[in-house]
């Protein structure tokens, strides 16, 4: 079983994911103009 990550590491990974999710969400929003 994998050990849980420390909160400091989870926060950093969350921030990285959030930034990239924002790009993906904006791309989806752009497509939504055509619907």
């Amino acid at each position, binding site marked *: 079983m994998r050990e849980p*990550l420390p909160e400091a590491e989870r926060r950093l990974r969350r*921030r990285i994911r959030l*930034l*990239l999710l924002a790009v993906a969400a904006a*791309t989806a929003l752009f497509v939504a103009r*055509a619907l």
Partner: protein
Amino acid sequence: MREGRTDRPPRGGSGLAPRAAAMLFLVLALAPLALAALSGEEPGGWHEEAGLALGLSALSLLLLQFAHAGRWPVVSGRTAIDVTMRFHRAAAILLLAFVLLHPLAFIAPLLLPDPWQGLARLQAMAASPRMTVGLVAWVALVATVLIALARRLIAYQVWRLLHGIGAAVAAAGAVWHAVSIGVYSGFRPLALLWWAGLGGAILLLLWSWGWKPWRLAAAGWRVSDVSPLGPGYWELRLTGGSDFRFSAGQFVWLAFGRALPWNDNPFSIASAPGCGHLHFVIREAGDLTSRIEALPVGLPVRVDGPHGAFTLDRAGPGPLLLVAGGAGIAPILSIARHLDAMGETRPVALLHCARSVSRLVCRAELAEIARRRCWRAMFLSEEDEAEGVARGMPDRQRLQALLAGWNPAEVGAMLCGPEPMTMAVARMLEEIGVRPDRLVYELFDYA
């Protein structure tokens, strides 16, 4: 011989604050979509818009990748460079997904009901002369990301060269493809943004591989000593450089002799700022580190740095815990030597772990500093034991013993070692009550 200036730089270093760097990334990454939306073009079908949006976002992500990986102080001066490199890798996966889906989205209405007809259409699209440059960029980008994922199978310097060339070909081809046949990229402000982005990316690559190595070669650093420290561990000393300021805990990229610009390797500085030379603890691990002992005295060395945010100002003003595992002792040595030289008065505890007693490099010096400064010190060996060295691994009881009597919420902890050890110790310290924002560590994986 010139005396090196190794004073401490201003607190915080230069460059954008992490939050500002993140906001700038978002603004630049989303600017092409915003300009496309403002271009006045009527949206087409959903699949066509999806193909175009994926292409626009992929190209902006690709151009921004040059800034994350360029060791550019504006981007990575205050955000730790290991964090910008980890972001670079995560963004590359999103970029690859967008690039793979970009052509498929255009044929989605055919592909979903009849995959064979869809693939035939895709083949016809790829065969069109208008698509040649875009196809070259697509192949270059996919190959560059896949090679990066398999980089451990390739010699480090070969991978670095392929990565740079592949990314440049992909960026140039993709910008040409967008401005020549793109629906939205015909909008002048967007076309100008693409050309400016490509110009910036190529300039950054030329700066990294051309101007910077040439300038660094003139700094005058040379090998002055290479001596063994323990099984597989070497001490490297450089002298003669000028105007080099760093903070204890930072690292540099070193290129020896006439090494090509993409053939440098990162090493943490083990000496204290202000001592006039640079000292490194190097563990034999790869192509270059296995040849360290053969480096001749007097060999010129290019020193690119300082980099990294493994610095004391991030640990706060409270009691300090320093934890080193294996070769992670190098930046901890720099910090310990710096605190000793500055006559630091706050409580300090030191935990040094290694596979064997003989690999606890510089143990005598650290024990002497700890004795002189009344620090708490603990040395652990996995395989054996000796006087002053216990056998075992870091565990919660040992960490609690090191922090006994201190308020854990005020403790700042600096951890450097293999990732599993660093993560395990960080988790145990959080369980004890150390605040996550007072845990300072860097995870490196450039192999």
